[in-house]
């Protein structure tokens, strides 16, 4: 009997205003896999990731989580994913530490929070309100979640935007250890990753859309 993949996407189609966004998407992800979504701007990378997080409902096609449709095991599925989108979801009036505490599992200890912030280079900024931090630092606060989360599946939408080279290195190291621990990652980025066995998935804009423009 073939092993059920951790995540299985089958002929996923999304229409917005009667217009198909991309050609049907199908792929499987196993534990330990990292998939990089590629495609030109506006191809629907963000839309695809939001479909996977179930923030959007697909027009047709299915997403299976360990063989079950995610609609049938919704909360179980949501509890095992981590999504970091374009906007960092950081509150300006809260400090870096308060923001990370809010975004991390309840069981996270104070020292784990401090360690995570130190990992992303925010040592010394823990108690600074976020409005006095830069855009790159806001992203770092959001990305510090990667060091506190217990989620198995990571969805990262352009995680390296506004992050410097050194930061990218740290994040990739963390991603590597996540994969080694049996997690999986799906991310969209235009950068080439310095990691082994990155699978690339090319997303194609639907042929409808070219006609329209």
């Amino acid at each position, binding site marked *: 009997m073939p092993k059920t993949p951790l995540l299985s996407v089958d002929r996923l189609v999304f229409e*917005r*205003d*009667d217009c198909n966004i991309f050609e049907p998407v199908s792929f499987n992800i196993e534990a330990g896999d990292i998939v990089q979504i590629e495609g030109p701007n506006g191809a629907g990378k963000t839309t695809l990731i939001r479909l996977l997080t179930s923030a959007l409902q697909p027009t047709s096609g299915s997403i299976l989580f360990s063989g079950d449709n995610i609609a049938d095991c919704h909360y179980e599925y949501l509890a095992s994913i981590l999504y970091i989108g374009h906007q960092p979801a950081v509150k300006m009036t809260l400090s870096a530490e308060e923001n990370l505490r809010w975004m991390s599992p309840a069981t996270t200890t104070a020292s784990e929070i401090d360690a995570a912030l130190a990992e992303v280079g925010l040592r010394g900024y823990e108690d600074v309100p976020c409005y006095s931090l830069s855009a790159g630092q806001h992203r770092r606060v959001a990305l510090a979640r990667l060091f506190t989360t217990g989620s198995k599946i990571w969805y990262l939408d352009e995680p390296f935007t506004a992050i410097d080279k050194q930061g990218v290195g740290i994040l990739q190291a963390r991603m590597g250890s996540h994969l080694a621990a049996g997690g999986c990652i799906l991310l969209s980025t235009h950068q080439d990753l310095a990691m082994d066995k990155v699978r690339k998935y090319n997303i194609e804009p639907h042929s*409808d859309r070219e006609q329209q423009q």
Partner: protein
Amino acid sequence: MASNRHWTWFYRLGSPRWFYETTGRWLPWLWTLTLVLLTAGLVWGLGYAPQDAKQGNSFRIIYLHVPVSFLALAGYYLMAIAGAIGLIWKMKLSYMVMKSAAPIGAALTFLALFTGAVWGKPTWGTYWVWDARITSMLILLFLYLGVLALQYAFHSQESGNKASAILALVGTVNIPIIYKSVDWWYTLHQPATIKFTSAPSMHIDMFQPLLLMIVALYSFYALALILFTRAEILQRERKATWVCELALQAGKDSAGEAG
């Protein structure tokens, strides 16, 4: 799936093309019916119905005011139900019906208010009174305008549809509450000397044309709704092959007429 077979009529009903073609066959009949009923009802009501003992001839406005108000309110429920069907079964046609019902309902509500005001002047001596029913009608107008405004506020057709469907549903839950509370508010403030709310018992000769006008307005409403929906279908389905063929055919016909 075989178990879904008895649902096919439902989905066929949801097909814009099926709707467009079927209503296309109905239209000539509906036009005739509407025009005949409206003419008959108006002539009967304005010319043949006996005049009211107290109000004189101004009471003849009732033949427009009551049917129009009736349809204005019924139209809101129709709109909300269409929106709910759209939300639940994701049926595109249903949203189109909802979108078409909004301007018709708003126009009829406006007419109800207008005819009410014109009727009020000779009867009560003033164009506007904060009477329970008039106030409720005014609120209904704003509910309609809200749905319309929300529909067009979104760039995305789909978001507009969903948002106005939700708003229409919220409004539906609210309408009975609004009506009851306005009614209660009115009894609280109503001066004891004037009473408009008690409906005068109508003579049968006056009632028959009213009934006819209500039927005529139903027919009119159906006609207007179908016409608006058909225009909306063409716009939404403009990329479908059958619509393209239709457009080319229409182009040829008009070119033929011109030549």
